[in-house]
């Protein structure tokens, strides 16, 4: 055989190598122009290749995308991001202790979810992936409820049927998370089409990882959003990795993911995903665009998956441990805290106090959650629930199967 000519995408650093993030095209904070949200799609093409940033290296908020949020809002954002992170940390430890079977952290990506949730209206409908717990936290879901789901205990909102992290909430307008990648993307578009059909002004927003943009449903979503000008925000969270494969394996070499928007006739914005202010501003811009009938925006949020893919994963097998330190866009919590310090409304002491408070909050929630049982210790869910909700009514064959199981269980007791 002759020498292969197949191109194989480059990776910044394998274990033991020095990371090189020069492929991440940066713009200076404040550099990118902010057109009106009803700008023509074609004119967003440059936005899709630059990087919307508000916070500069010194923590100052600069440029036309500065959303000029009130300090309380910023403090709320910091608090919610921190809460998300501490919740994640605690749940990760809990998994290590064997109390829950599986967990997925959003470490380093908290701004992507929290800032977006804060920029959207309460009635807007959210279609998260499994790494957007910041949405649930920011929408005010109780940590106890989230934990009970993780524990599949007697208070589990999913009645024991889902892997941990596959939350949902009708009142908080958070769609049910799927274990199948990308399926929520066309669903969000359909929700938005329905809003338009009904003449309502609510919009939808969906999130997927950059790796998942390769999936068919990503394309379905963009196509339907384009054709019907659906009021939806299509967020691509480019955290550089999809388990062990690098973003180049989803087509990220030399081209942004935001460019998929203009490619099909949707607005596209590439945003510093670790800049709380930039994410907020870009989301608000896209929401205004959608709500005013100008259609969908593809938002690429450039960030970095600072932890493992999930508790089943060991990234030291496939990427350099140094990467996380070299990542050019820093950490979203540290950057917002720096900004607030600079603004004079924050300092290390207050930060430490907040951490302590939130840790206690998480710990208290955990105590309450496990009082409702764990996967292995009671109180437990009734196994008969296994047969409910397959259909609205229990059909005869499932009644028979349920009775067979209950007989089997009682015989063995």
């Amino acid at each position, binding site marked *: 055989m002759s020498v292969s000519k197949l191109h194989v995408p480059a990776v910044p650093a394998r274990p033991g190598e020095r990371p090189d993030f020069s492929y991440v095209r940066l713009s200076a904070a404040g550099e990118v122009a902010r057109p009106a949200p009803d700008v023509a799609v074609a004119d967003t093409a440059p936005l899709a290749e630059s990087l919307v940033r508000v916070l500069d290296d010194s923590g100052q908020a600069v440029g036309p995308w500065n959303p000029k949020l009130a300090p309380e809002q910023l403090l709320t954002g910091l608090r919610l991001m921190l809460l998300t992170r501490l919740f994640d940390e605690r749940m990760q430890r809990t998994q290590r202790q064997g109390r829950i079977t599986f967990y997925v952290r959003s470490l380093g990506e908290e701004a992507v979810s929290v800032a977006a949730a804060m920029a959207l209206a309460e009635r807007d409908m959210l279609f998260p992936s499994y790494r957007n717990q910041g949405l649930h936290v920011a929408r005010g879901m109780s940590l106890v409820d989230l934990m009970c789901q993780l524990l599949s205990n007697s208070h589990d909102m999913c009645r024991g049927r889902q892997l941990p992290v596959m939350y949902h909430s009708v009142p908080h307008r958070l769609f049910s998370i799927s274990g199948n990648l990308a399926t929520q993307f066309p669903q969000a578009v359909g929700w938005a089409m329905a809003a338009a059909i009904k003449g309502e002004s609510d919009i939808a927003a969906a999130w997927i990882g950059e790796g998942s943009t390769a999936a068919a449903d990503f394309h379905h979503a963009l196509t339907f959003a384009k054709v*019907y000008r659906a009021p939806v925000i299509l967020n691509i969270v480019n955290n550089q990795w999809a388990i062990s494969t690098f973003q180049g394996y989803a087509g990220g070499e030399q081209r942004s993911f935001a460019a998929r928007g203009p490619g099909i006739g949707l607005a596209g914005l590439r945003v510093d995903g670790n800049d709380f202010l930039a994410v907020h501003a870009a989301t608000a811009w896209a929401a205004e665009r959608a709500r005013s009938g100008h259609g969908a925006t593809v938002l690429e949020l450039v960030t970095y998956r600072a932890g493992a893919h999930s508790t089943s994963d060991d990234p030291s097998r496939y990427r350099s441990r140094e990467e996380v330190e070299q990542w050019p866009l820093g950490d979203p919590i540290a950057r917002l805290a720096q900004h607030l310090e600079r603004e004079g409304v924050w300092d290390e002491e207050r930060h430490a106090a907040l951490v302590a408070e939130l840790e206690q909050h998480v710990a208290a929630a955990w105590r309450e959650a496990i009082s409702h049982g764990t996967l292995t210790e009671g109180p437990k869910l009734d196994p008969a629930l296994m047969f409910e909700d397959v259909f609205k009514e229990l059909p005869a064959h499932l009644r028979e199967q349920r009775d067979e199981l209950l007989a089997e269980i009682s015989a063995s007791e």
Partner: protein
Amino acid sequence: MPTMNMVQALNSAMDVMLQRDPRVVVLGEDVGYFGGVFRVTDGLQKKHGAHRVLDTPIAEGGIVGTSVGMCANGLRPVAEIQFADYIYPAYDQIVSEVARLRYRSAAAFTAPLTIRTPCGGGIRGGQTHSQSPEGVFAHVSGIKTVMPSNPHDAKGMLIAAIEDDDPVIFFEPKRIYNGPFDGEPDKPAESWVGHPSAEVPEGYYTVPLGQAAITRAGSALSVITYGTMVHVCLAAVQALGLDAEVVDVRSMMPLDIDTIAASVSKTGRCLIVHEATRFGGFGAELSASIQERCFWHLEAPIMRVAGWDTPYPHAFEWEYFPGKRRVMNALRKLMAEAV
């Protein structure tokens, strides 16, 4: 009462539901302005508007995926897949989402979606316009799978499907859209006019899902079948002058096994007939379930007549199609089995 063929009956069902329920929308490839390649949605867009009867991009996965989202926003979509042979690009959304949503969210979110799709052969459509894939849906927990065999059932079942709070895959045997078909291609095409099941009320009515129908009562043996094959089986039974009971399954899931098992327990002999390929097809479940319930009543092995286990071949349509002759052969064989 007006006479309708299946196309008109299905059209009427959607018309009635678009009128009655503002949550109902109809969508699919070519269903809007044009009215569908089989004319089943003819006139609906004109009457109910382009925002309720939508032409869609050619992406079956997108049609179903967006429909799930519409459900979450309170609508009741009726999605058409132009041919059942083109439903596979939507298989992931159907299996992983439509079928699972109620379960995984403990009924917080549901997908009261109806997916209509023409199935079956006998129209010289070749391998990509003739398939009967009901088996790969009936196996999936969380969706209902049904197939009517006449205009009256078609309308009543489609209304029931649209009103059902569970997702329904609604197969339409396209060979009998315009008239019943007994499996003899050389005879002049029949029309539904004059057929008792073609008397279809104009307005609202339902035929409940999950109930089989005894299309012909009898005591010598039971023929369990559905779709186009109901008519083929009736013709075969009649040609042989057998006192057979012909049961129209109508609903694969939920399956009315009680009616079916009662028939087989009574007659002691059972022939299962469908167009879909035999191996691993829905007939296998029928056979297994019947055997489990009726074993001590069986006087002969349960037999199956089905499509051969090949793709649907264009040139050999009538050698492939399980026609009257093949059903008659099986009936003869079944009656000849000694106890």
